[in-house]
Structures are given as structure tokens and as C-alpha cells.
């Protein structure tokens, strides 16, 4: 449950970052909204990969 909660919280944070990023980079709202899923998945994927590396990797 705790892991799910943290994953959910991380998703909210990544969604906020992706939203701001999309609306800053894109010229119009349609393009910003259209690019949001791609940015979210890419960002979330990178974040999860970094977390996994930090957790299972050589640092701990």
C-alpha cells in the first residue's frame, strides 16, 4: 500500500511537471494537451528508472 501511495504521489508530481513543461514549450493549448501523455510517460519512465537504479543499484 505504501509503495502504491508513493507511486501515486510521484505520478501526481510528474503530471504537474509534464503539464507545466507542455504548456511552456508548446505554442497552443491543443498541441500542449496532445503532447501531455507522451511527456508524462517519458518523464515517469525516466523517474521510475532512476528510482529503481537508486534502490537496487550499487549505492545501497
Amino acid at each position: 500500500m505504501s509503495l502504491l501511495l508513493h507511486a501515486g504521489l510521484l505520478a501526481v508530481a510528474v503530471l504537474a511537471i509534464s503539464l507545466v513543461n507542455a504548456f511552456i514549450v508548446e505554442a497552443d493549448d491543443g498541441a500542449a494537451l496532445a503532447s501531455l501523455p507522451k511527456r508524462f510517460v517519458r518523464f515517469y519512465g525516466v523517474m521510475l528508472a532512476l528510482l529503481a537504479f537508486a534502490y537496487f543499484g550499487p549505492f545501497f
Partner: protein
Amino acid sequence: MESARPTSNVPPSVATILTWLLPGAGHAVLGAWPIALLGFALVEGLYLLGYLVSDGVVFEFLDPELRGRFALVLAPEFGNLGALLLHQLAQPLTMPAGPVPIAPPLPPASVHLGAVLTATSGVLNMVLMCHAHLTALVRRHARPEQGATDQKAAADTQRAVDRTAVQVAAGWMVPGAGHWLQGRKRRALLVAVALLGVFAIGTFLSQGTNLSREHHFYYWSGQALIGLPAFVAEALRGHPPLMSVPPMIDAGLFFATLAGLLNGLVLIDVYAWGESGALGRDPVADRRAMAAHRRESKSAAKRGSSGSRSGAKAPASKHLVAPHPAGAASDVTADDAEGTR
């Protein structure tokens, strides 16, 4: 007799740095004396007031082991560098000599108000720096031969510069307000909901302890960029009695600070939009030109990596400007371009 349209060769970066060191100095160099004096009085007055009501101990919350030469670079007061340096000369933040006292002297009760005032002074000086930068930029772009004949355009340009600074300040105070004032209302609502929501989640998870500079000096600095919501929340319930550490404190601090830092990005967007308008360019066309430039750069890089190394270089982005259809500074809003709301 009409006065000439103001022009200047002062580089925008010089005007900005002068303002950083001394509020109003950048405007003084540009000859904009009323704003120079008003900005100086407002920014330094706020800092002085904060200093006086807090007995100058707004930085004493910083843990002794974190007090270094550059410890205050991440504080919002860093936006008002001159006052911060003067403050440090008068009352240096140093490592206490010898063992740290178990019960250090209590700061005055008004120290939290003092911190809000000095932080506000730092952020407002950043807004003044934006204004000085844009003023220098438009005066550099103004052609002297337009001088006596183009007074109305000059006044319009100056109004666009002033409006941009007001929009940045509003966007700091209330996330999304800058976009709203620029006519980008759907974007404003999305920004407000996203950032205020993230900030509310953070405050909820950390049970309000994130709002205290006393407990979380640097996280407080980050969330100060979200402006009034952070300060109002702090005034309402920012200093709860700490019986135990909230279990989700780390996530809470992360969320609250993230909201503030993202608002910093949003403010850059507000400024960039206003800058395009003040320079007589179409902000939407500017964005599209930059996006096209990025795509070109990417494809050129791909071609370069897959084929020969002698790929053509993309043009510098600063030359990618899109003239505004009106050809002069005007009230450029999203209304000017269909589909930008």
C-alpha cells in the same frame, strides 16, 4: 516641441545586474528616474521593514552546520543582493564558536512576518530586474530616426513593458494570474489548479510544518515562489506545535517546494510572452519558430550522427523572431492567434 523617443545602448544584462545590486539602479542608468526611485523605495523599504520587525534574525533558523559562504544563495532574499550583502555585513550569519547552545535565545515573535517581508523584497526586486531588462531591450531596439514622430508607439511599448512586469508580479502572487492577465485564461486555470493542488497536497502531507521557515529553511525558500498562497497558509496555520514528525513529511516537503519551483518556470513563460509583445513580435509565432528550430536541430543532429559529420548548423535561436502583424508593440494576447487559449 516633442521629445525624442527614448533610445539607449545600455545592455539589458547590465541594467538587470545593476538592479540586482541596487534596486532602481538599472532604471537610473536608463534615465527612468520615477520607476528607479519608486522601485528603490518599495523594495528596500520592504527589506528594511522586515529587518526591523525581526531584529535582523531572519536567517538564524538555518542550521549551524549549513552556514557557509554561499548558504543564502537559495534564499528568496538573494533577489535583492545589495540588501542581503549589507545585512550580512551588519549582522553576519556565522558558525557559532564553540559548542552549539542547547537552548539558543528565542527570536522575536514577529520574526516570521519579518521573513515574509524580506523574502517579498527579494522576489519584487526580481520583478524590477525583469522590468529593467525589458526596458533596456526595447530602447535598444528603438530606432533613433523614429524619434519625434513615433511618440504614441513609444508610449505603447512602455505600457507593454509595464504590463509585463505587473503580469509577472501577479503570477508570483497567485499562480496563473499572469497568464490570466495576458488573456491566456484556459492556461491560467490549468496552472492554478495544478500548482495550487500540488501545494495543497504537500501542505496536507506535511501537516503544515512545510510552511515554517524555522523547521525547513530551504524548502520554505522554494515554496515562497508560489507567493500569497504560501504566505497566507503560513499566517493561518504555519507554525503548528510539533509533537512528532509527520510520517509523510518528505513527500509533503517535496510537493510544496515543487509547486513553488514550477511557478518559477511559469513566471518565465509569462515574461517571455510579454517580452515578445513588447518587442512588437507575435508571441505565438515566436513559439512556433522556436519549436520549428528545435525540430530542425534534432533532425540535423540525427542526420549528423547517422551520416557525415558535416551537417549544416541551425541558425542561432536569437535570430528566430516573428514580426507581429501590427509591426509595433501592442496588446498582444492569445486573442490574436486562434487556438492559443
